């Protein structure tokens, strides 16, 4: 039991940090541009596939560097030539544009790499057990993922809090017009933020690709969870996104590893209706319910705290 708790906690924090790598970019983009980037998870997917392709040609470490840059460049282009012209048609048009973009990116990835998972392997230099706790070998690659995401988190924090550019970004979050009046090129800041945000998502894609499955539906699977994170944390709140990422990472990881069900807990009672209409609810295990747990959390949050955990503003 203790073993399960320790391993699940580690995995949960890992998954949470990965989520935060993406949610942070999404949140900052949302706060600044006012548009929730529907295609954010698509950039995560692009990162994974670029990483796969580049690591095939030049090795994993080059891929870890180049793939996010490529995805970030695409992000910059999308902001400059796609989002900015749509901006005058309002937020709904922007959201729809990113929705269409997500659709097109998935189609393009399917055309180039096919629908089945690609063989994206863990680099051999990291393919060994890091340590053993209670008879379970914990892979070094997962520790590497954890370290990378924590390092980026720390770097992001320092940039935002301690540097000049971070100050401008923070100011543009709340008062974009004032920042423009002070002589800063807000358009360029937006472009930069969009590029960095998408590049962060791509980093998450490159490091998650070998550990999870690199497939053309990965954006569609992860995207909704990402939005749950952002809404649960409070739209536009970076600390909220951090808390929500870890919360959802932990909850989902723990749910997957549990096998209990109602029939297991109350089996001896065995009421008659349990075997007919309610058979599914009666016998489903917690592990099977795991995929819907984030959404249940979303609905609960919306009922009891519509602003999100740490959110302060209404959209």
């Amino acid at each position, binding site marked *: 039991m203790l073993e399960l708790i320790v391993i699940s906690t580690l995995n949960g924090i890992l998954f949470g940090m990965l989520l935060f790598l993406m949610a942070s970019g999404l949140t900052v983009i949302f706060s600044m541009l006012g548009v929730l980037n529907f295609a954010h998870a698509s950039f995560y997917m692009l990162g994974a596939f670029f990483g796969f392709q580049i690591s095939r040609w030049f090795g994993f470490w080059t891929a870890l560097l180049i793939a996010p840059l490529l995805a970030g460049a695409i992000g910059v282009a999308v902001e400059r030539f796609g989002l900015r012209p749509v901006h005058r048609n309002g*937020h709904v*048009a922007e*959201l729809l544009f990113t*929705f269409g973009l997500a*659709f097109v990116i998935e*189609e393009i990835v399917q*055309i180039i790499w096919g629908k089945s998972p690609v063989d994206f392997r863990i680099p051999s230099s990291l393919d060994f057990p890091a340590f053993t706790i209670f008879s379970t070998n914990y892979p070094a690659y997962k520790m590497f993922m954890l370290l990378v995401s924590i390092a980026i988190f720390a770097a992001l924090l320092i940039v935002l809090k301690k540097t000049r550019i971070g100050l401008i970004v923070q100011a543009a979050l709340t008062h974009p017009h004032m920042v423009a009046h002070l002589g800063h090129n807000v358009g360029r800041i937006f472009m930069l933020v969009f590029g960095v945000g998408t590049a962060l998502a791509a980093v998450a894609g490159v490091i998650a690709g070998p550990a999870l499955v690199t497939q053309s539906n990965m954006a569609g699977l992860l995207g909704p969870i990402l939005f749950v994170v952002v809404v649960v944390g409070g739209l536009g709140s970076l600390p909220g996104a951090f808390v929500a990422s870890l919360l959802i990472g932990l909850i989902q990881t723990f749910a997957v590893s549990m096998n209990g069900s109602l029939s297991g807990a109350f089996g001896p009672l065995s009421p008659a209706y349990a075997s007919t209409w309610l058979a599914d609810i009666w016998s489903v295990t917690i592990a099977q319910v795991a995929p819907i747990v984030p959404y249940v959390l979303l609905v609960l949050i*919306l*009922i009891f705290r519509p602003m999100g955990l740490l959110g302060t503003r209404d959209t």
Partner: protein
Amino acid sequence: MSEIATTVAPPLPTATEKLKFYGMWVAAAVVLVLLPRVFGSGGSLTTFSLIGISIIFSLSYNILLGQTGLLSFGHAVYYGLGGFLVIHAINIIGANKLPIPLPVIPLIGGLTGLFFGALLGWVSTQRSGTAFAMISLGVAELIASSALILRTFFGGEAGVSANRTKLFKIFGWSFGPQIQIYYLVAAWTLIAVIAMYALTRTPLGRMCNAVRDNPERVQFVGYNPHVVRYLAFCFSGFFAGIAGALAAINFEIANSAYLGAQQSGTVLFAAFIGGIGFFIGPIVGAIFVTILSLGLSDLTQVWQLYFGLIFIAVVLFAPGGITGLLMMHRPLLKAGTLPQVLPSYLFALVPTLAMIAGLVLAVETIVHYTVNPGDDSHIKAFGIPFDAASPSIWAISAVLLVGGFLVARKDWVRVKEAWDRAGSLAREKDVSA
């Protein structure tokens, strides 16, 4: 008080206006009745049925997006649940030999949509804008994932099927042949379209528009925007349920794809491409998108890519959709300045088409090398055969793409100039008239 009311209220419609208005619906009904006489083949009847279902679904979606300003990413939930309930209802009614004929069955789907709209709507519509969009997506994922867990009711991956011909018969109609299903769908489409049009004319419909445009003022007037959004959500769920029920009757099966993100995306595409600013927009969009998805899938392997690109193009260049584009020309047509714009259109259209042709050629060639690399390089796209391996194809597509883009960019600027001239002329005439 009564004086103010009479001056403020619009004048009562004249007899000709009334005739025009009711004549339009009668004409629509006549067209629907006569359509199978003209296109009687099984394939076209199926297409018409699908279009009818799509029209109801898109219009129900536009109650949210176009009229209340709520962008939903999970509208298929109410469509799908309506479909599932109807399949189960048909099975139960058929097994117990209840005297309920098929034509009233879609009502069950509608009530299901209404019930779930009422259940999930209160939480969903607390906020509008981006928050609502995200919530609708979350709720949709919740229902779609639950559908795969609750296998007894939703039938897992395979879905649940039913036999529509086993029901109580009226007028000797068994609803086995597609033609009878066509008439069923057509009748329900007409009823639903009229009902939804009537809804836009009610005070509630007007309040929905007000909530879309300025929720704060609505509060000052004394209405609660949340309640208005909630009511719109319920109505939209009701009509989506009817559409889902008709789809379930048409296919005699309901599966988890009915509830999924793909279905929600399709209805959003249809409504938006048609144009959300006008009542007729989603109808045009539904017809366009249904025919496009049926037609394109025969012509090319990667039709969904083109589909997405068309959607992005509409969002970027024609946010009013197809109807918005057409309606833009109405003032010019009235003022008689339309002919001034047409030549510049022609100039712009040629390079634009060249660019699109180049893009399609490039996409099809790339698809040949990535999706089926081993095949013969003599491929066929949109019915036109060409050799993907020859360098001339690459050169042609590059020239068309780049050249078309450069010329088109200049020409569209000219279109805008011509447009502005014609528009100001039309306005002058309007003022002097």
